[in-house]
């Protein structure tokens, strides 16, 4: 945890000193990068570090969709299913992905490599359909592109 505290210190230095409370979200992001998913004890840890009520951090943790509260696979595939991507065939691709990975929405493959999440708009409407694997975008998808991306990851 000490190295985490160092990172926390470095991050909090970039914010004005009176804005400790603002650091809740950045620290949660940071912690998630470190640990993959977050639990309530992490929230309490951050709250203690910042001196804010633990409930505030817990609320934030449960409220923001990017924060994972359950263990996820090594690669988190987030497929956009909003209007523009749907118009360009996202539903078909989601079915394809489900079938290819053999998992449903929100599930992780048994080998722990992939987690399939369906998300709302990724702001890639012009290049729809799109998905985000871990943090990087993959746009203008088709079955072939998906095959290639998955190939590359494994």
């Amino acid at each position, binding site marked *: 945890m000490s190295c985490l505290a160092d990172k926390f210190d470095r991050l909090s230095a970039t914010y004005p000193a009176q804005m400790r409370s603002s650091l809740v979200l950045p620290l949660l992001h940071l912690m998630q990068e470190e640990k993959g998913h977050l639990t*309530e*004890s992490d929230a*309490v840890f951050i709250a203690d570090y910042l001196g804010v*009520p*633990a*409930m*505030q951090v*817990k*609320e934030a943790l*449960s*409220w923001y*969709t990017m924060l994972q509260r359950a263990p996820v696979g090594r690669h988190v595939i987030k497929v956009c299913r909003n209007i523009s991507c749907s118009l360009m065939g996202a539903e078909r691709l989601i079915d394809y992905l489900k079938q290819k990975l053999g998992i449903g929405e929100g599930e992780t493959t048994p080998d722990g490599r992939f987690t399939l999440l369906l998300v709302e708009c990724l702001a890639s409407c012009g290049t729809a359909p799109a998905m985000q694997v871990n943090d990087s975008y993959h746009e203008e998808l088709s079955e072939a592109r998906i095959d290639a991306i998955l190939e590359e990851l494994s």
Partner: protein
Amino acid sequence: MIELKIDNKMVAANEGETVLQAALRHGIEIPHFCYHPCLSIAGNCRICLVKVGGRPKLMPSCNLAVAPNMEIETDTEEVAEARRAVMRFITLNHPGECGICDKAGECRLQDYHVRYGEPEPISIEPKSRKPKFYDLSPRILLDNERCILCGCCVRFTQEVSGSHQLGIVERGSHARVERLETGAFDDPYSDNVIGLCPVGALLSRDFLYRSRVWYLEPVRSVCTGCSRCCSVNVWRRNRHWHLRALGEELNRTAYRVTPFENPEINGPWICNKGYDLHRFMARQRVLQPMIAGRGASVEEALAEARRLLSESINPAALVSAHASNEELAAFQAALGPRLAVYSREDYRPAPGEAVEDGLLIRGVKNPNSYGVQALFGHRPYGVINGHDLLLVWGDNAEDTSFDGARVIRLASFGTQQEFTADVLIPVSTTFERSGSFSNFEGKVNRFDKVFDKPELVQHAGELFGRLA
């Protein structure tokens, strides 16, 4: 003073007030769930929408500051439609289980549903399921299905008690009130959220299913837990609903204690100890006068006490800090000049009890220490001994030794065996008499009689005249 017009009625409002406050003060009813005068404005229930002259949209009156010449309408069809819509949304997932909900009868949602809602839901969707009977603490249960997410309880923990132990987690229609998984909701003021909840989502385990509220009636009383002397309502069974088959004793039981809003002393809150007042009062009672350990009639006990008093050379009295001002005055008038008077601390803080905080709880755990000390000065017994007779008035078996003096005891609680007094006369509790206490700031707070006293129990205030 700002003059504004609500429903074509000129209303005078104070600077900085909201329209809702001004309307409520003038008896114009605007429904509200999330608004509470002692909490910040959340504006999230949206049932208090009103029409403001010159604005296209309906405005929430709880967040609308009064302005001169404002024209507010609360009974137009537009407002009624908005209320109907909001009631529709609130009742969309609210389970229809008023029958088993303890709040029914004093539930604002119920009242508003009758007044502003629609008789039949237009939704045919199944109601969503959320955790029921979620344990917030050993005192409180939370039914998330009934919760309408007004956030009053959360704001209470944030703004009044400051414990920040409750929060609304998840988003959208999955949102629900939760505590931290690691810590119970052990706020010393936690029970206030039960009364604060406009619906029956927060349930008191103590009162759970004990009675429907319309069978009960409140009586104003005072909490004897500390020298704050908060005003409370003690709920006893209404005379019309006295029970016969289920036991007469239930008719003489205080079902629950809730705060009585007294802006001078406690505002709308009391602490958990106050909520437990009825249990404090339901302890084992002394009901039988005793002379040297054997039962006697009241007259015999009094005669014996008179004899002891007349025979003694140097009598003293230990005066209870649970005595009302009236009883103290009666004591002073009848016996005061003849006895050396000491003030007595009936109760001291229990181990683990919150001693003192900035909100309500005070360190002195007796209600009328101020009154006793104002009358007799601060003289704890033990400084001077050598009295041959002690009139010990008050509860709690004393740990002080009485130095071989003869003892006349006036007590309410305990078992007969506990007291090794020469004369023991049972006296009434706070619930069984009316009177007043002076709290630590000297503010006088009155209380009314809740129950009749048991037959052999005497009112202390009436005893002294007969003892003298």
